[in-house]
């Protein structure tokens, strides 16, 4: 089980957010709020009277205190959704509810929604300290409180000593962290993050993101997070929403999305996947028998009925490599070193099957051209109708 879920076990069904606070809100904080986006439509004017539809019939519900990640390819409309929620963009139709109250007509500055901009948007004339203190100053918070709040927000992003610097004197990653601190400090009803850690190195990113998650939990703030980093999405989120061309493709817990993707697009987007054509031969006791790569395998039966022709999805880590005489015979065609893992492209007949394993310290070193035998962890096979177009 995922660690974060263990502590915040709230999975609201799509259409009726459960109003239970996931964690005890901090003293003095208002209760966490549920967010509900219904049938949102939004397009941009392209000039010449043409409009580019960017978000189409977008539906998403967040339970109070929930942390949901929005994943999707570049240009699919993630930033646009966040900006619309924050009140920075007009939209054509749809409804946005925060704790059942519509905020669609509320001006941005009354929404109490914190947004970390993809381009940081730090105020160039204010020091780092003043940037972070800005929202507190607007609310005329006492100076002592401002100092301590800002100090702790800066500490959370590892910039304790940078208060007096001007934004122009910071590196890209440092600027990004200031932007995060600035949003955290305002204790909003809803936190929106637009790729807030994209310019941080892996180590710092892990550090800042766990700090961020800790703070979000402590404050009980509902959060919507955009990232292009799967690890981040997987490890941070209560649930993940995968977007494609302005629509939601699937919403679900990280494992669900990873193990049982609703579409090939989702499967490919959250990690490498082998999508192999297969044919269903038989079905019995929650198992199906399929033919794939010329052999017969047993796979878990999917919830919904399927046609005969299917795609069998297999993650590379579910493809095991053994000696040339074990399993299906294949030839190693391609090897890519990725640090903790090494990726192998194995040719089986006409098909290239991808497998990964941690090569480190293996007695048996695989080289390009080697003959290997491959096996499958059958219970991880996920079947989809073959009509689903490949991406």
């Amino acid at each position, binding site marked *: 089980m995922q660690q974060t879920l263990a502590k915040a076990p709230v999975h609201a069904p799509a259409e009726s957010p459960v109003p239970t606070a996931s964690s005890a809100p901090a003293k003095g904080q208002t209760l966490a709020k549920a967010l509900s986006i219904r049938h949102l439509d939004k397009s941009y004017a392209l000039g010449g009277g043409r409009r580019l539809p960017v978000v189409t019939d977008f539906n998403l519900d967040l339970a109070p205190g929930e942390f949901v990640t929005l994943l999707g390819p570049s240009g699919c409309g993630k930033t646009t959704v966040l900006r619309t929620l924050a009140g920075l963009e007009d939209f054509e139709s749809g409804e946005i509810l925060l704790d059942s109250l519509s905020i669609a007509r509320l001006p*941005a*500055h009354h929404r109490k929604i914190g947004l970390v901009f993809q381009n940081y948007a730090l*105020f160039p004339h204010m020091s780092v300290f003043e940037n972070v203190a800005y929202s507190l100053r607007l609310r005329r918070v006492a100076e002592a409180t401002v100092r301590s709040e800002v100090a702790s927000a800066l500490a959370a992003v590892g910039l304790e000593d940078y208060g007096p610097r001007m934004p122009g004197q910071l590196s890209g990653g440092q600027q990004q962290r200031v932007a995060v601190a600035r949003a955290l400090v305002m204790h909003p009803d809803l936190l929106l993050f637009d790729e807030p850690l994209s310019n941080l190195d892996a180590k710092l990113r892990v550090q800042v993101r766990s700090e961020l998650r800790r703070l979000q939990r402590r404050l009980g703030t509902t959060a919507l997070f955009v990232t292009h980093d799967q690890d981040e999405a997987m490890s941070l989120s209560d649930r993940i929403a995968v977007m494609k061309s302005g629509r939601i493709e699937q919403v679900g817990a990280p494992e669900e999305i990873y193990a049982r993707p609703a579409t090939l697009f989702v499967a490919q987007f959250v990690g490498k996947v082998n999508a192999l054509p297969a044919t269903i031969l038989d079905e019995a006791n929650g198992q199906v028998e399929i033919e794939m790569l010329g052999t017969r395998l047993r796979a878990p039966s999917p919830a919904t009925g399927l046609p005969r022709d299917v795609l069998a999805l297999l993650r590379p880590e579910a493809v095991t490599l053994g000696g040339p005489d074990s399993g299906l015979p294949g030839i190693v065609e391609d090897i890519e070193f990725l640090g903790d893992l090494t990726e192998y492209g194995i040719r089986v007949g006409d098909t290239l099957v991808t497998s990964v394993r941690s090569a480190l310290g293996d007695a048996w070193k695989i080289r390009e051209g080697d003959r290997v035998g491959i096996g499958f962890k059958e219970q991880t096979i996920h079947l989809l109708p073959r009509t689903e177009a490949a991406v």
Partner: protein
Amino acid sequence: MSAVAPAGMTERAQRRDWTLYWVYPVAAAFVLIFTAYPMIDLLMRAFTADGRLSLALLSETVADPYNRKVFWNTLILGATVAILGTVLATLYAYVIARVAIPGKRVWHFFALLPTISPPILMALALIMLYGRRGLITHDLFGLQTTGLYGFTGLVVAQLISYFPFAYLMMLNLFKGLDASLEEAASTMGANGWRVLRTVSLPLLVPGLAGSMLLMFSYSFADLGNPLLLGGDFPVLSSQIYQTIIGMYDIPKGAALAVLLLIPALMMFFAHKALSARMSFASVGAKGSSRHREVRHGGVRAAGLIFVGFITLVICLQYGTILAGAFTQLFGINYSFTTKHLVAALTKSRGALVDTLLLGLVASFISVMLGLLIAWIVARTRARGQSLLDFTANLPLAIPGTVIGLAFGLAFNGPPLILTGTAAIIVAAFVVRSLPYGIRSGVAALNQINRTLDEASTTMGATSGQTLWRILLPIVQPALLAGMIFSFTRSVTTLSAVIFVVSPHWSLVTPTILSQMDRGDVGEAAALSVIVVVMVLAVIHGVPRLLGGDWREAR
């Protein structure tokens, strides 16, 4: 957010917040009362004959061949000055902002000096230097030329007087450009010139157009130079002046003013359309504003020569005035004296104090008002903002004399009687410098990336708070430039105040004018020197008072 929306605002504006609800009416009221009302009042005179509406006067004016010649003269002069002035200003600003040359503070200082050009005296200095017996043309080069009088002289005089305003505007824009764009271009192989031509200048197009508009308008409205140097090259402003002052014919003067409005209007809308299409926000989001300087030896030398030459021209002007102030009779009797200075300080003390006071008040009001209107224009979608912008900019195109006269006529009777008060003088000052405040405000705001506003808004700031805490500090340099400009303009304007000064509030410029009229060049020069010193003190003192940051602006 609910409540009843005042008329004239879009749905979008309503959803914003209350700031617009007081800013807009305040700005609109000022512009209506002090720009639209007197102008309409005056222009109505061009459209009435025997108390009834009629186009007779106007068509008579247009039909007159002499007027047509004058009209074309005005256009040609305006275009020449606008183009040359913008080129000079852009080059100067570029050299100061981007080329590694020594002594930048000095060059900058001298470039701004002509903004404090005392009326008439600058033209006189020109005559003394480049006239038939000019120290340079005649005594140095042995020429006996009358070339100074007419078109050439006007171009030179207007360039010297007005190029600094365009320079100041361009300098701020150059400084505001996102540095990484220029850097990107140079890594791709563009040398300084190509970077300028392909990246910086295109990004500055709205600014360039603004500067052209400004120069055009100044040329239109300039009266002093055409009167002194115009020779046989009559332009509309002097024609209007002659019609009203010489022939006491206000309706015909108003009709001529209508003529002047046509090109001004066209310029205004052309500029507006252009900047709407071509403004690109760049500052402040992820960009940086640390600009690299061009180090190329040839460029530096050329830059230095260019800047040095302009500075020399300016220095000669002021040197002449300075010499005039401290010699018995410049050009005739060069013995040193301080009697002019003493006379100026004693006899004109009242005028100096009043000018300083009213100028400061007016410059503050006009800058704040200018920023508010700029903000309405650049950052909101309030209905009628275009009209507001246009009306507030009208005085750019109208000779000060006409504005002054309109003021005098309009505020002498009900509903609003201001004759003889300080308020009318301040209002006249403000109305005249407001356009500059708006133009530079709009240009500065357009350079600020909107995500900054948005970030502020999402953190709970009303648009007013965003304006005050984010936009205002960032446009501070432009604002300060505007304030300096407004102050110097107020202190040196002549035409606009001649009909509104009263025995109770005297100003320096009419005093200088009458000293010149009676031939007391020495005293006029001395008073001008005092004015220059006074303005410099304000320019350098006020920023210091307002905090260190402001000094950067210059």
